[in-house]
């Protein structure tokens, strides 16, 4: 399977009466985006209003509480469309040609539950901890209709769909734009791969998906990952929007849809493919709450690694606590099949960094890359403008009573920052 990504570099976003991409500037008619979002019945049913804003790198702007971050893309050649099984029909994606609006994102924000979190600072010390401070962000803030308190599942669904629809609308603007550059990614069949790279180690990416329930969900071709069995994807399917985030809790280490579209493990394995290793495939597996599900899913991960005759596997997890058990089960069982593993995680090692980092461990999990310590304390200065709302800050993950100080600054753990300790290794924090 072969996918070509054509990158259209976005260097500015402006509101306009006409929506288009011209000379690197995205012009957006917010009313047209709103109308496109409201074409969905669930959005119509649960979202009272949307407001729109633009946040640019370096501006004194804080976006919060962030729900999802999405990169706008459009399929220009080949089967399928963006966000298959949710927005586009469920056709298999990952081949043909997709245009990418690079350097920007659609950010959805607004309260769903009272303790929600997720901060993107566009300047100051907080900006260093989130990759999204470097992007031009088109921000959609959603307000629920009255009575939504008893229907938060439905409201979360509506806001998730709204964000994907906004990204679809904007992505479509890149359809007839000549990309500034392009790249191709190809995965061969098993036999072809062995014949072409007989001397290279066979490596797969075991991609663990958050799948515990409300605000902790991931969707694969529209299917709730908790209802899936461990299976195989072409890496380009992930790059082409097959995996979507429904995860709104634990800002620092949730994988947004943008992370899935731009998974750095996939990117790095492709960069090494045919040189130092043979990148065989992605194995996706879930992180359910039921212990028997964990056993089944990790048994299947190990079974597939063996069946594929792998030499090595990179394993990334998503979340804290419960997924640590899946991570260790996967690692241990895959190692026992004779396949070498390296895991990517983050740490909750206490504010002094001295505590045990994970809730589970095993001697076989002896190669670990960390995305940083989520308990690290940071002070975020007051910024000139807030997109969204700050009233929840005292209750967010990593915040505490008094987090929002009288001068408008915030004292909190870096848990509050979207993407700070990403467990795909997307961000720059680590430890040696």
């Amino acid at each position, binding site marked *: 399977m072969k996918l070509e990504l054509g990158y259209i570099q976005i260097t500015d976003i402006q509101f306009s009466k006409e929506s288009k991409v011209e000379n690197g500037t995205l012009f957006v008619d917010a009313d047209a985006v709103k109308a496109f979002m409201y074409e969905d019945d669930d959005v119509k049913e649960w979202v009272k209003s949307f407001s729109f804003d633009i946040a640019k790198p370096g501006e004194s702007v804080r976006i919060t509480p962030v729900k999802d971050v999405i990169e706008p893309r459009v399929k220009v050649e080949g089967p399928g469309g963006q966000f298959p099984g949710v927005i586009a029909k469920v056709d298999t994606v990952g081949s043909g040609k997709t245009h990418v609006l690079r350097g920007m994102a659609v950010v959805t924000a607004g309260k769903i539950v009272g303790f929600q979190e997720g901060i993107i600072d566009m300047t100051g010390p907080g900006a260093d901890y989130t990759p999204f401070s470097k992007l031009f962000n088109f921000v959609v803030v959603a307000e629920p209709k009255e009575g939504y308190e008893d229907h938060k599942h439905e409201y979360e669904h509506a806001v998730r769909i709204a964000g994907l629809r906004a990204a679809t609308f904007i992505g479509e603007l890149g359809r007839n734009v000549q990309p500034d550059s392009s790249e191709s990614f190809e995965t061969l069949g098993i036999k072809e791969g062995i014949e072409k790279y007989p001397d290279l180690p066979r490596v797969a990416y075991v991609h663990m998906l958050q799948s515990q329930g*409300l605000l902790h969900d991931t969707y694969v071709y529209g299917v709730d990952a*908790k209802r899936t069995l461990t299976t195989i994807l072409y890496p380009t399917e992930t790059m082409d929007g097959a995996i979507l985030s429904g995860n709104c809790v634990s800002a620092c280490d949730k994988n947004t849809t943008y992370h899935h579209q731009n998974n750095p493990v996939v990117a790095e394995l492709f960069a090494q493919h045919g040189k130092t290793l043979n990148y065989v495939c992605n194995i996706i597996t879930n992180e359910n709450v039921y212990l028997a599900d964990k056993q089944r899913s990790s048994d299947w991960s190990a079974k597939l690694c063996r069946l594929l005759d792998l030499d090595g596997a990179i394993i990334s997890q998503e979340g804290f606590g419960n997924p640590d058990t899946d991570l260790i089960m996967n690692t241990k069982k895959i190692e026992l099949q004779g396949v070498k593993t390296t895991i990517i995680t983050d740490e909750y090692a206490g504010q002094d960094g001295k505590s045990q980092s994970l809730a589970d461990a095993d001697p076989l999990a002896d190669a670990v890359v960390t995305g940083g310590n989520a308990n690290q304390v940071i002070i975020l200065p007051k910024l000139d403008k807030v997109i969204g709302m700050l009233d929840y800050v005292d*209750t967010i993950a990593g915040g505490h009573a008094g987090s929002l100080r009288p001068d408008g600054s915030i004292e909190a753990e870096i848990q509050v920052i979207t993407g700070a300790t990403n467990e795909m290794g997307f961000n720059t924090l680590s430890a040696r």
Partner: protein
Amino acid sequence: MESPLKICVITNNPLVVSGLPKQYLVDYADITYRQILVKVRDLVYAGYRLYTHPLSGSVKPNETPYKSVVVSRKPEKMEVAEAAIISASIETFDKFRPGKRELTAQIQKDFQLVDYALLCGALGLDAAAGLSIIANQKL
């Protein structure tokens, strides 16, 4: 998945009491998150099976006061792996600084909701449907 008739939900979440179908046995007590973990640990040590992960959810143990854990209704034989999971969960709980914040009634409800939804996900129940039934009963 075990039959509802073979499991027991240990919880301090009042929403679980009202939100599960009748065939589920719910052992509710107005105790802390940590006390729930200790109660589950003692049951697991006594041979009750542990069916769900005690640290379900990315909401940290020092943020939410609510926790539901599923165990077997009857003791069997102690499973070492399950005992290790509950023990490690208590160690992890103790690693977090105790939360000092005052939770508003709405935020308490939201924490109850997430715990309930995660429990339903584990049990293969539709949390949204359960909540709709509860909401309709209130009307």
